[in-house]
């Protein structure tokens, strides 16, 4: 019986996996998984509700990004995205790859300084980076088709994620490094935060190199499809 109780809470994990695989709406799947693993661990329903409510409200900082929406919405209404695209088109030296690589490096460096909430999907990617990237690709002379536009947007979001994650890990005063140090301290191993942070540096550099190369390759593919498209139009 005790052996069974040890493994039963894993049912919650199964609910999550099944729910995502079957493409149900993720929110009810996640809440159901919490309830299932609570029940499987033998907790009374009142405790499960309280646990759910407490964990939810204690993470409410995760909703802060919605505060950017009114300002961004007003600017978009006045044509911010259109202006960004038009403006990028006039900058001759700025290619898609250069733009994204500069953004990646800036994001990593800012995150290393602990400034990871300065940029983000709501703050910078939707209003600025994605339209800039689209504008930069369209300089090839052929407008983006729908699939290419979506790919460029998704790649911009991916670049923001990678820059953030693999910069943040080097920052010593908050988050990852302190979590590691705190965990070791609990288990009787004392470490300097700086020594932990330094060992994340090789990965930060590798992340930059790998993603920069992928950016260049993706940029070339977009440019090539533009040339082929232009040739198609010329031969018509």
């Amino acid at each position, binding site marked *: 019986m005790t052996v069974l109780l040890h493994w039963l809470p894993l049912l919650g994990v199964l609910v*999550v996996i099944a729910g995502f695989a079957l*493409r149900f709406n993720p*929110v*009810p799947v*996640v*809440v*159901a998984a*919490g309830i299932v693993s609570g029940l499987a661990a033998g*907790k009374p329903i009142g405790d499960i*509700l*309280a*646990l*759910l*409510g*407490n*964990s*939810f409200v204690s*993470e*409410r900082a*995760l909703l*802060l*990004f*919605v*505060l950017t929406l*009114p*300002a*961004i*919405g*007003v600017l*978009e*209404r*006045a044509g911010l*995205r*259109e202006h960004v695209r038009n*403006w990028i088109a006039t900058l001759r030296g700025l290619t898609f790859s250069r733009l994204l690589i500069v953004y990646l490096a800036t994001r990593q460096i800012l995150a290393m300084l602990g*400034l990871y909430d300065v940029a983000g999907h*709501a*703050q*910078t*990617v*939707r209003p600025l980076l994605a339209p800039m990237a689209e504008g930069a690709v369209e300089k090839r002379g052929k407008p983006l088709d729908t699939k290419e536009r*979506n790919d460029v*947007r998704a790649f911009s979001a*991916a670049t*923001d*994620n*990678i820059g953030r*994650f693999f910069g943040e*890990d080097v920052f010593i005063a908050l988050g990852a490094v302190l*979590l*590691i140090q705190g*965990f*070791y301290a609990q288990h009787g*191993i004392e470490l300097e935060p700086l020594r*932990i942070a330094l060992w*994340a540096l090789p*990965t930060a550099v*590798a*992340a930059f190199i*790998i993603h920069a190369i992928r950016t260049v390759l993706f940029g070339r593919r977009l440019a090539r499809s533009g040339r082929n498209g232009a040739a198609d139009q010329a031969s018509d």
Partner: protein
Amino acid sequence: MLKIEHAYWLIALFLAGAALLNLRQRRWSHAAFWGVLAALIAGGKLVLEASDAHHPLPAQLAGVGVIALAALSPRMTRGHLVERDESEREADARRLGHRLFGPALLIPLVTLVVALFGAYFVVGGVHLFGKTRMTLTGLALSCVVALVAALWVTRARPAAGLAEGRRLLDTLGWAALLPLTLAALGGVFAATGVGTAVADLVRMLIPVDSALACVIAFGLGMVLFTVIMGNAFAAFPVLMAGIGIPLLIQLHGANPAILGALGMVTGYCGTLFTPMAANFNIVPVALLELPNQNDVIRAQWKTGALLLVVNLALMYFLIFRF
């Protein structure tokens, strides 16, 4: 003094406004969804304080609220709300030009200033910004500053702020909520012993005498657990307690500093693969109006996979050498 709590009130106010606009248009589910969420955010502090004082009722009510949100989520269809005409936007863009950048850039700039120098803003012996979560307080402040600037530059009426904000909020729909729900799930998983069960499972499956097998099990375990939880921070203590400390450090003599740092970034690779990391992988899908829920993951998984191989190699070659 400006505190993070003020930012939460501001969020609740904005959500309540969005609920009201939806109510007026008879979009009942949307109105209820944002209304319940506004109540949860506004009452957050109360719930936590009551729990600390061992009054479970507010937290239980919050739990009921979370379940109500989950029930409403499938009804939050991403119906496209009427946007202004593209030709009108284009005309405004030509007229206003670079002035449009100002308010947009104010968001990162003001956040940066508060993050770097917030501690030095003292008026009459009172600190202007609370010490905890100062960057996030700065972010909230920067959003208000940017909104005022945006209204001034575009000469839009203040009501446009709420109307346009609500348009984007409804575009996000349930995706805005997922990060919080997942965090709540993390709390439940931790409290019900899911972590230790997973670590035990991994240990049953590998030959513990082989240092290489332990490194791989630790690294892939970090990735797998991060994929399930959507968060490397949740995976770290579980895998460290299950494999890292007993097998790698105590049995094979690994260097703890290197193991900790590389273990964590290996988990970060997992964050790039999973829809559970909703604020990074699902929220942007909604924000950028992409057609498929996994579009951002598709754009980044190759970087994550290559980096995972690099990390495992670094781990194997570094942790036993220093």
